[in-house]
């Protein structure tokens, strides 16, 4: 069968994947603390090279062609988003490196800690500091929930220390995770961090800004171009496929003609 079909199809699938990732970036162009994803692709080696079957006979020309394209792991770009002042005392933005810790339900009824750069918080009826997105508790440096007195002014310092009436009452967990590639998006503007990567966590070097939020770090122009260029790549690969179709057709009708 014509090898080019498969290469063309891999091009279509990879470009559609890139478009999906870019579409999600664009949909989150106003989501607080959102970080842009890159839908990466890698060239695929010919079957003999990929499978390490070097002693099998092969067609050198075909091998040089490669075998199309594969999807690579999605990369998240941890660029700083714009700091927007909101004037709400329980909004915080992070300038520079660092994440806040949020508790939540994990697999099988366990509790887990997720990390976020979305610092929109509020108090629940018991005075616990929670995230506005779903009411999960925002944690302190010891991973405990934080209880505040709602009647008093809340001041949050650059290092995450929360003061009420001039007294230090709690301190937000504010950590940086060195191995950024291990962070996995979990929805609700949060990241899952595997235990191995958590070992590399260190106190954050960035600073916390009160009464502000970090806007989405998506560059809308780049995201739009990615959506459009992926659409063009799909058409191009599809065009290649129909050309191969045409060739096959001609081979059948002309080469194979007897008289």
């Amino acid at each position, binding site marked *: 069968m014509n090898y080019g079909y498969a290469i063309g199809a891999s091009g279509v699938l990879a470009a559609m994947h890139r478009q999906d990732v870019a579409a999600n970036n664009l949909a989150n162009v106003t989501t607080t603390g959102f970080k842009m994803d890159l839908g990466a692709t890698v060239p695929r080696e010919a079957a003999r090279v990929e499978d390490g079957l070097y002693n099998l006979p092969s067609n050198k020309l075909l091998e040089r062609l490669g075998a199309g394209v594969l999807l690579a*792991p999605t990369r998240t770009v941890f660029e700083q988003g714009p700091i927007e002042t909101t004037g709400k005392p329980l909004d915080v933005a992070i300038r520079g490196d660092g994440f806040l810790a949020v508790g939540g339900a994990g697999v099988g009824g366990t509790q887990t800690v997720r990390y976020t750069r*979305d610092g929109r918080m509020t108090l629940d009826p018991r005075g616990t500091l929670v995230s506005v997105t779903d009411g999960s508790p925002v944690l302190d440096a010891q991973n405990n929930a934080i209880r505040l007195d709602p009647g008093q002014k809340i001041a949050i310092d650059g290092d995450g220390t929360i003061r009420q009436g001039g007294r230090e009452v709690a301190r937000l967990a504010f950590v940086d995770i060195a191995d950024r590639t291990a962070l996995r998006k979990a929805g609700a503007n949060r990241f899952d961090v595997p235990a191995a990567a958590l070992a590399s966590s260190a106190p954050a070097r960035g600073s916390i800004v009160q009464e502000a939020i970090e806007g989405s770090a998506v560059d809308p122009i780049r995201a739009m171009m990615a959506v459009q260029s992926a659409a063009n790549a799909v*058409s191009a690969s599809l065009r290649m496929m129909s050309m191969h179709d045409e060739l096959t057709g001609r081979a059948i009708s002309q080469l194979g003609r007897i008289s």
Partner: protein
Amino acid sequence: MAIISLQSAASGMSALNTALDVIANNLANVNTAGFKASRANFQDLLYIERSQPGVRNANDDQRPTGLQVGLGVKVSGTEYDFTAGNPIKGNKLDIYIQGNGFLRVQVEDARSPSGTAYTRAGQLALNSDGELVLATDQGRRLADGITIDGDVEDIQIDSSGRVLIKRPGVAELEDGGQLTLANFVNPWGLSSLGENLFADTDASGPPIEGEAGTDSFGTILQGYYESSNVDPTTELINMIRVQRAFEMNSNTIRAADEVLRSVAQLRR
């Protein structure tokens, strides 16, 4: 696959549409006394894992998984901004709360289970029975049940919310009752009833009542009312931003549609 980009873009458009609704309501209430602006909070949706065996990262080592595709965005909720509006010179019976606190207003049980609603719009008036009411078309009574009848020369409300009545020809002021304020652990959990009123909910917690000037309660300033805290400039900037983001998501739909059409035309 292109179906996912269609859905992401659609989720973006519907969330941005909600954000636009919220902004429009804020702008419409730019002159409403005691109005509190809201904002729509966004969060990204779940991610699907698109794993493919033998995927390599840039360091050329293999990862069994790690290919994530997001499914778009949603509005997680709206949140009130309870920063105070400015005091605006008003009528004799207008009051402005300098600091925390809400006035308590009687409403039908159907509107608020506790029978009480809360407001910061301190535009007060007397009804034909001499009761202290909100100067709205509903004329709702304050829950403190203050009635001022007889011959009145002047009414004064002091900073602690005590109502004092000056009778003609009497030098001493007569005590007319006490305004009680209410506060909430989580005012962001209040639900809006319209008419500048809020109702307490499980999320806001029960009201904490007290006199103005005590504990965490603000003091009362007579002769002023509270303006809307909507900042038109911020709202208009947000509107532009939301509208453009909306347009960009509609472009994604067009691009995804293009892809699907090309695929459909592969075999003619």
